[in-house]
């Protein structure tokens, strides 16, 4: 009997720059190497039943990545985790595996994400830059042009941000943001940075971005996916 298993895994520093497509291919192969047979779709071009939660943009790391795998011959969760971790390249690691109670795809559950930005200013003191970012985010609306394949439109990212915290940490500004994520409304963390970079005159390095959590909504409140 095949069974859907939901995994939580991390994408770390060593694989920061692999794309979502690369990650999917890598996971599929890791299952094969681990000797865990996945169910395949029917038809002319069968492919393994493996689906992912919200993709991470290239360059973003996270310990909160999720995937659903339909496994042919189910093994104890501990063994699945152990086998998979042995077969994964450095930088990718599975933390949890559960048989989900609801059968909805992991992607459709996601409603919010929490991101951490760490960024160093290049041409102003750190406290000035911290205040600058606070001021930008404190505005009632922060409009930015969002480009899609065909057209671009102006969106107010403040509409999609639930909460934020900006503070100074040594030479860096550290910014934590909780925002919309998933298939209904999604704010790409790179767009948040694009907005800040557009509204400030100061120069800085590109921020190092980590996704701290991915959430679903239960009783109107965000709770972790697993």
């Amino acid at each position, binding site marked *: 009997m095949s069974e859907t298993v939901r995994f939580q895994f991390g994408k770390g520093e060593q*694989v920061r720059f692999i794309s979502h497509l690369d990650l999917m291919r890598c996971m599929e192969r890791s299952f094969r190497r681990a000797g865990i047979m996945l169910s395949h779709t029917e038809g002319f071009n069968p492919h393994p039943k493996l689906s992912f939660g919200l993709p991470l943009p290239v360059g973003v790391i996270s310990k909160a990545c999720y995937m659903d795998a339909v496994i042919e011959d189910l093994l104890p969760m501990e063994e699945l985790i152990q086998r998979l971790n042995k077969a994964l390249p450095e930088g990718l690691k599975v933390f949890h595996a559960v048989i989900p109670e609801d059968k909805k795809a992991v992607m459709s559950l996601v409603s919010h994400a929490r991101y951490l930005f760490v960024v160093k200013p290049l041409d102003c003191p750190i406290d000035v830059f911290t205040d600058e970012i606070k001021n930008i985010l404190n505005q009632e609306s922060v409009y930015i042009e969002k480009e899609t394949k065909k057209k671009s439109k102006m969106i107010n990212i403040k509409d999609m941000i639930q909460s934020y915290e900006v503070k100074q940490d040594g030479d860096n500004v550290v910014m934590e943001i909780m925002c919309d994520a998933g298939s209904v409304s999604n704010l790409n963390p790179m767009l948040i940075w694009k907005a800040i970079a557009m509204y400030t005159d100061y120069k800085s390095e590109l921020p190092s971005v980590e996704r701290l959590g991915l959430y679903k909504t239960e009783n109107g409140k965000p709770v972790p996916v697993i």
Partner: protein
Amino acid sequence: MPVNLSNQILQGVEKPAAYTGGEYNSIVKNIEQVNIRFAFCFPDTYEIGMSHLGMKILYHVLNKREDIWCERVFAPKTDMEQIMREEGISLYALESKDPLSDFDFLGFTLQYEMCYTNVLNMLDLGNVPLLAKDRTKDHPFVLAGGSCTYNPEPMADFFDFFVLGEGEEVTLEIMDAYAVWKKQKDATRKDFLKMLTKIQGVYVPGFYDVEYNADGTIKEMTKEDFAPSVIQKRIITDFDKAVFPDNDIVPFIEPVHDRVALELFRGCIRGCRFCQAGFTYRPVREKKPDTLVKQALQLLDCTGHSEVALTSLSTSDYSSLGEFANKLTEETEKRKVNLSLPSLRVDSFSLDLMEKTQKVRKSGLTFAPEAGTQRLRDIINKNITEEDILNAVKIANAGGYTTIKLYFMLGLPGETMEDVEGIAHLINKITDVYRQSENKKLYNRLSITASTSFFVPKPFTPFQWVPQLSKEEYLNRQQHLDKLLRDNRKVRYNWHEGDLSTLEAVMARGDRRVGKVIYTAWENGCKFDSWDEHFKYDNWTEAFKTCGIDPLFYSMREREKGEVLPWDHIDIGVSRDFLWSEYECAKKGETTPDCRTFCSGCGATTFGGGVCYE
């Protein structure tokens, strides 16, 4: 010391994962515990290089030795190169991120002539002197192997030495010699290179000099006393027992060929007269079916790949193909792994095999008649008749295939306008097979892609003496064919541009003087020449002018029988006399049977193995 690759830099380039390493099965060693550091350099992008079987084999052969660490280096794309130059970042190896100058060896593979400027660009990016004569004891030794090194002369100035033929064994012999040399405190670079002249298959160009006649042809090659007058290529005599990688790097980003590659045999029994590989890889040597199945499963297990491809020059000529395919498909089906069969001759047997193995939707069929008439196919010894082709097309039609790819060459020796028209006739006959078949749906869906390339005469083929057709005449023939094919709505006709092929013809049969042109072209900004978007023909033309070298001397001149050829000191086992007799046969339109049918005495028996002794 590793180079400093900040996230800032990687965030700014296309496909940054090509520059970060860390792939599954890539090998990281402790530099304190290795004696020799080898950088395997592929002079093209990561995606192309990671598809190359030779690199996988040698990476494995070298890294199996505890005292050696072999790493990989690829040519960065232009966006990454620009940042590296701006930030002063040296070209580095993917595993350690250490700059090229930290290595003992930089081993390039030369797979096609138009990668030569990339070699120079990579050395430059790695802060290694481009000319062998400028390197000191502080610099790595720079070597090359691969199919282009059978005529190494155009690149002779840039390499300390070349390794001719198959590298599985000779590479380690070179490493052993280096370990001995490294222990001697006062030994010079020349001392090491001198040691190498004792190893079969190694050519040190610095020990040779060329004298020219007044007409520009070669008078003779002179050499240091201790250097061999002829350098014989290396082969693995017992191919079944050849070292084979028991694990294989799994790239994150998708390489051109993303699969397990299984080499059924080396060499080709056919002897098509235009094909360099058909002569340089002689004699044909096969692996046993059981060995191959074992190796396929081992690689599938350790990589997690979902496809196995049988790679050989002509898969259909594998003597136990039926037995082997049955054994392999039994295993691949269990694992839901696809089996890919490029270079199969189309007949009922192979279609049956494809039906069985390819669970995915029907891919197209590929035919390579190479020439449009029987007369010309006999000249090039492509032993396939029009009847064979049309029968195969009937089988394809019966099997429901509707996508057909056809490959031809224009400018073959002896080609006339009739032969060009023959291509159109043949294509029309193929179309007729579908038109006349009962299933009209198949005819409606039929799509033929015909491609022509511009013939480039290559060293170590019977056509090594012939002139290449002029670019003007090539374009004339290509346009004529285009006109003839315009009426056939089922055909899409693709052709190669002429410029690249004329240049390739110079590189293929060039001598040492061509090295200056390559250097100048690189200075003029040429790199990634085989990429349409980067190819700068005018900069090459400029380079020829600057160096006072006429490209047509190399591409369009007919060589006399007695002329000293730039590669005469290289011995591939096939004799020059045999090649000349094949050239004579070509002129008479006589064909030569394949190696299994009849031994034509090419000379490859000298290696003491393979098909010659079956």
